[in-house]
């Protein structure tokens, strides 16, 4: 049961590995970027999971509700990391557009062949 109880962490690890696999194995540059985004999203989930407190609610002061709050700090951190991730993806896609203009393809091995010619 303990293994099942930690399923958040399993989701994190599996997503991380799927992303890393796509980054390494895919030859299409856009697919590589999709893998990279998945890889980063997995880490966002790790942070959100660690901030969760059992029975905790959103950390906003309330008069009636419970006094157990989730830890807001990891959420703030991940807000920043999401912005960083978006910038990276945007820049990566920008480079892919430029590559398509210059080389006429977005397949890694084809670009390599053109350069070696």
């Amino acid at each position, binding site marked *: 049961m303990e293994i099942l109880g930690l399923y958040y962490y399993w989701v994190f690890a599996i997503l991380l590995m799927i992303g*890393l696999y796509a*980054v390494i194995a895919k030859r299409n*540059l856009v697919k*590589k970027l999709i893998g*990279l985004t998945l*890889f*980063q999203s997995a*880490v966002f989930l*790790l*942070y959100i999971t*660690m901030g969760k407190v059992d029975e905790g609610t959103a950390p906003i002061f309330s008069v009636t509700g419970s006094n157990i709050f989730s830890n807001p700090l*990891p959420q703030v*951190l991940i807000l*920043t*990391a999401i912005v*960083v991730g978006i*910038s*990276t993806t945007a*820049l*990566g896609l920008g*480079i*892919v557009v*430029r*590559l398509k203009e*210059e*080389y006429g393809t977005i397949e*890694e091995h084809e*670009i*390599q062949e053109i*350069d070696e010619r």
Partner: protein
Amino acid sequence: MNILVDHLLALQVVVPMLIAPVVILLAPRGLAWAASTMVSLLTFAVAIQIVQGVLTGGPMSYLLGSWPAPYGIELMVDAFSALLLLVVTGASAFALISGRESLDSQIDAGRQPLFYAAWLLALAGLSGIVVAADAFNIFVFMEISSLASYVLIAGGPDRRALPSVFKYLIMGTVGATFYLIGIGLIYMMTGTLNLVDMELRIHSVAEQRPILVAAGFITVGLALKAAIFPLHVWLPNAYTYAPHMVTAFLAACATKVSLYILLRFDFFVFQGNLVDHASQFAAYMMPLAILGILVGSAVAMFEKNIKRLLAFSSIAQIGYIMLGASFVTVTGLTAGIVHIFNHALAKGALFLAVAMFAMVAAGLRLDDLKGIARRMPWTFGAFVIAALSLIGIPGTAGFVSKWQLIGAAMELGTAGLPLVAVILISSLMAVVYVWRVVEVACFGEAVDEPGPPVSVPPLLVAVLWLIAAANIYFGLNPDLPLTLSGDAAAELLGHLP
């Protein structure tokens, strides 16, 4: 004035970051360059102030918004950070002062303001990493500097920069994300992001395994960013196809800043807290450092493009820094850290000289450089001095760090002798690859009609000679970098008996 002095650490980062968007608006020719050069010089002056402050008064700390340390965000500069600040801001300032003509020829006039804005953001990010005392701030600054340097590298006219920068982006982001996972695991166990606080709280963590995993993630992630062999594959192409001045700037400081965080985490945070950390760090890092030194130097001996040759030599030099660190002694770490400074001096001067060759020669393959010494005698003279420093000839800065490194290896007893042999062999390899350049430049017959000696703008030659002279000055008077790196090593290993 006193108000400004109190805020030096914040100004170091805030000034270039705030001026960067302003620079975008400076469309008239040359204005963007002038503004960025002024900012770089200003940060260099601030860095000198900070170094003096650290030398006289010890580590400096700055509380952002005056929130007390573990809760608010702290900036902190000790001897190690001060040395790196000097390298980062100095590299940016000198590359920009001498870079105008070279960058004008490589970057379209219309895109120049954007290019200089990215340069300032890279500068802000790199200085930010060095002054930050908060693990997550280091991540954010690392990404700011990385994103900006991807833009800088892709900014040149050579289309082969694009595939190399894409590779750099993928590997750099994977490295940064690994670092983020490591920070997350530590935060889970300690609940803090402040490095000093983290170091104290890991003591009381009962379950060591997450910390160990975090150490692994952080070390591998930063090794990717720092291009430690065998994670260096992004480096040679990125350096080769970047605009020449960008190579001079980034080769002098970008990988060193990643090494700085790596050493800070592994020694300052983990060293006193993980069982057997010293022997594990040595067991993994020493073979990689030795392989990096030998493979990097060997490949450089056979490279045909001078920028690629110097890039592979950089991989070998990163190996020297890691070799010093892998001894896990104060003398070894001192040697590694002082080599960060000395290598920046030598490699910065070499790439500056290469940028000037590129203004005259047809290309940067060794064949294109035939007879270049006769056409540009002054530039080539400075190149040779910097190359001697790279090899480690007595009287140059490179000798000081290699001497320290050999001294540190000898302290290990007989186990150190093979290491000394490695250092000597790779120095001989450096002689070979430097000689190949000197040979074509001095004795090669130019294919086309050798024109009259070309006059490079005198300011450029003056800056280049200033840095070449610094290589000799710090070879004869190594007190400043040695004091700083000695203090840095002592602080990093403060937990050892």
